[in-house]
């Protein structure tokens, strides 16, 4: 792999992270022997898909986490960044993806929180706070309104406030975590002007992102991460987007899933023209139309944040789309109660299993009963038919190989993989016609992952329609029969047969380098 002319003598580096490894107590290795260096006054992109390890790496630079192995050197001094305060003291500032701002306070008040200027002892010197804000805003050319309340200002300005917060606390190295995820195109252009301005003043900027076109625009060098490892550091001018795509998106080991070829029949889920605008006025779903048929697994691929979550939420009434239709076997499901949606035969394996998928302080039995407690099978008059319920719970525990002490065990006591198996045991077993699976195997062990994937294929072949949303490339490419790629809220591609799909092609569509024609995409609608 070409290290290239991007490496330079040690003295030029303002930040050096060598051999960084981070292993969490549950055994997950988020970073493995990663090297990462920053030159003074450069804009450096840290790229990778979600789960590649870039956020973890930067958390360690900001003192939010500590490396299991490896060392960090700041301006030639070897340091242990044990907390954010230590990092801030050494001139490192971080702008988080989810803003750390207090909505009802003004911009100036947020700026000086924790270091507020005082007058006559007790009182807050508002004027001074505003003055400081104006001073810094001018110096760095980040236009903000000091007296406006944070809840009233646009997202772009909120981000500028976050940057100014870091600068006023003396940051010379700025880490920006996915800064453009919430910005419009115009706001993004403004941000880039400001970043270049900062660079010219000698500040060093790390830009965490996976948006290729932006990276090419303003960065000097880039480091690519995949699967917790560094795939190399390059001068931006020396690489093409295709090369980056190939390095970013790819599987080290290709999973082979045993399955018969799908024979899809009637359409079960019919989505047309679905649109959704989020609370920050960003269009997260843009005229999305597709069909899912009986007997097929339709995958939804894409880098996270391109509308996949909003799509699933819309189908299960966790949000309200602004336009479009969605129907299951001819009956519209948009806006229906979740009880009604289930009655129409839709099951959901939710992304946030702890919040929605289970009631942790309840037993396994109580958890698999939750969507069918009124069922005739389990009730004799006013009382539960405990025998039938016990039999069903035991049957599901066995069928789904849930490792537990008994059906009475609290679900929160189980391992992650077994918790998810309880969720799918319930969601798969109530005779659904459509299964929505959102990141079904995220964060769980290999055994449970294999089991759940096998089950999905089994159910699909028995005639159930499956919509599989997954950020795991292996999963979405090998498990799906066909798949759509989402980018910027639109469907960028439809591949009827995933068998012939390569990682490189996937990368190009996922990162927005290519987009299929409307005709090609239109083939996912089967009427």
């Amino acid at each position: 792999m070409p290290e290239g002319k991007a490496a330079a003598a040690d003295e030029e580096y303002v930040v050096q992270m060598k051999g960084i490894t981070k292993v969490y107590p549950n055994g997950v290795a988020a970073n493995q022997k990663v090297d990462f260096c920053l030159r003074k006054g450069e804009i450096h992109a840290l790229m990778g898909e979600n789960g590649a390890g870039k956020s973890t790496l930067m958390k360690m630079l900001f003192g939010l986490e500590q490396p299991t192995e490896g060392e960090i050197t700041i301006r030639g001094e070897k340091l242990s960044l044990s907390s954010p305060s230590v990092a801030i003291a050494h001139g490192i500032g971080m702008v988080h993806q989810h803003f750390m701002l207090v909505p009802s306070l003004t911009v100036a008040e947020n700026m000086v929180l924790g270091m507020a200027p005082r007058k006559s002892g007790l009182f807050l010197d508002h004027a001074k706070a505003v003055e400081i804000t104006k001073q810094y805003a001018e110096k760095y050319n980040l236009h903000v309104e000091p007296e406006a309340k944070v809840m009233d200002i646009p997202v772009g300005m909120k981000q500028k406030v976050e940057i100014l917060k870091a600068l006023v606390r003396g940051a010379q190295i700025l880490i920006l975590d996915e800064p453009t995820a919430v910005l419009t195109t115009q706001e993004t252009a403004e941000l880039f002007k400001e970043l270049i301005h900062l660079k010219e003043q000698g500040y060093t900027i790390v830009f965490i992102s996976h948006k290729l076109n932006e990276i090419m625009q303003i960065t000097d060098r880039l480091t690519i991460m995949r699967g917790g490892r560094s795939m190399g550091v390059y001068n931006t001018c020396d690489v093409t987007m295709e090369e980056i795509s190939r390095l970013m998106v790819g599987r080290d080991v290709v999973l082979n899933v045993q399955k018969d070829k799908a024979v899809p029949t009637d359409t079960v889920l019919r989505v047309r023209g679905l649109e959704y605008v989020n609370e920050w006025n960003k269009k997260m779903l843009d005229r999305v139309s597709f069909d899912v048929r009986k007997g097929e697994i339709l995958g939804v691929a894409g880098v996270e944040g391109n509308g996949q979550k909003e799509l699933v939420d819309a189908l299960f009434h966790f949000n309200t789309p602004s336009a479009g239709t969605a129907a299951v076997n001819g009956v519209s499901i948009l806006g229906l109660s979740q009880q009604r949606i289930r009655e129409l035969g839709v099951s959901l394996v939710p992304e946030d299993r702890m919040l929605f998928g289970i009631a942790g302080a309840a037993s396994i039995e109580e958890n698999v009963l939750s969507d069918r407690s009124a069922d005739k099978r389990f009730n004799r008059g006013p009382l539960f038919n405990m025998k039938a319920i016990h039999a069903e719970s035991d049957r599901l525990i066995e069928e789904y190989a849930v490792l537990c002490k008994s059906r009475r065990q609290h679900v929160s006591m189980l391992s992650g993989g077994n918790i998810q198996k309880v969720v799918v045991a319930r969601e798969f077993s109530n005779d659904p016609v459509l299964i929505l699976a959102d990141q079904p195997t995220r964060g769980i062990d290999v055994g449970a992952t294999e089991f759940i994937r096998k089950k999905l294929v089994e159910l699909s072949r028995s005639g159930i329609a499956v919509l599989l949303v997954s950020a795991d490339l292996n999963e979405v490419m090998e498990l799906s029969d066909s798949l759509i790629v989402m980018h910027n809220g639109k469907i960028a591609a439809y591949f009827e047969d995933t068998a012939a799909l390569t990682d490189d092609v996937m990368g190009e569509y996922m990162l927005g380098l290519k987009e299929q024609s409307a005709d090609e995409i239109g083939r996912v609608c089967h009427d």
Partner: protein
Amino acid sequence: MLNFLKLLLTPEFFFSILRISAPILFATLGAIIVEKAGFCNIGLEGIMMFSALAGSMVSYYTGSWLLGLLGALLMGTLLGFVMGFFAFQLKTDITLVGIAVNMMGSGGTLFLCKVITNLTEGKAMASTTGLITSGLCIPNITIPLISKIPFLGGVLSGHSLLTYLAFLICGLTSVILYKTSLGLNIRAVGENPNAASSVGVSVLKIKYVAIMYSGLMAGFGGAFMSMSYAQGWSQDMVAGRGFIALAAQAMGSGECLGGMLSSLVFGFAQALGIKFSAIGLDSNLASPIPYAVTIIGLVIFALSRRSRDKKQRLTAKK
């Protein structure tokens, strides 16, 4: 009917509104501060009960109303601290801590009163009304110039020191919240504790400050009850004012001005009830008026907020 209205439009009536609202206002300020810090203190009622007892007892034994007042304030602040300890360090649900304080308040104050008076007076008394003279109560203040103004003079002058203090501290609380860095920190901790701790503000410390301030306010309220509103402490004299304060905080949108106006509304309701019973209405029909007004007030507030949200959503879509 007209006669009745004439009865209302007297300086005495408005005077009584201010007087009755004052203890509710104190408790409301306590509710406002903790809500700004992100939680709810339903134990204000119990704290007021204990502070009322402490105030009148210390006043009696030291012979000084000022020390009595300080005793009540100390009791309130201390109870606030203890509540914070159980809620923040031992992780008892703060609602349950509040319920426990209220539970202990009703009988516990009677117990303490009996025990202490037994030790010092030789017999267990169920209230301190027999012990407290007017000299041991908080003095009323006649403001020299204002008292001469016709009508308004009768309304504004001659109130207990604490009545004036209630409205003054209302303004003071607003100043603290919006003009000091402490207030800034409190509001930050209440809205986004992560943001606050990310810039080095101690969330725990701020929550303690807030709950102790609310205890202090309840201390004022309790002292008012036993050393000004009535002469001496008796059981259940607080009669739910600590709970009405929670409603007043909600109806005032959590702000000091709104809280003051809501407290005045409840004060009006209660004063009206007293007037009704003075002209012959059964006191048992007059007494529930403020409580009913509380429920009605909460409903009106919820409805108005709902229609405001609806309007906001419609304009945002455009």
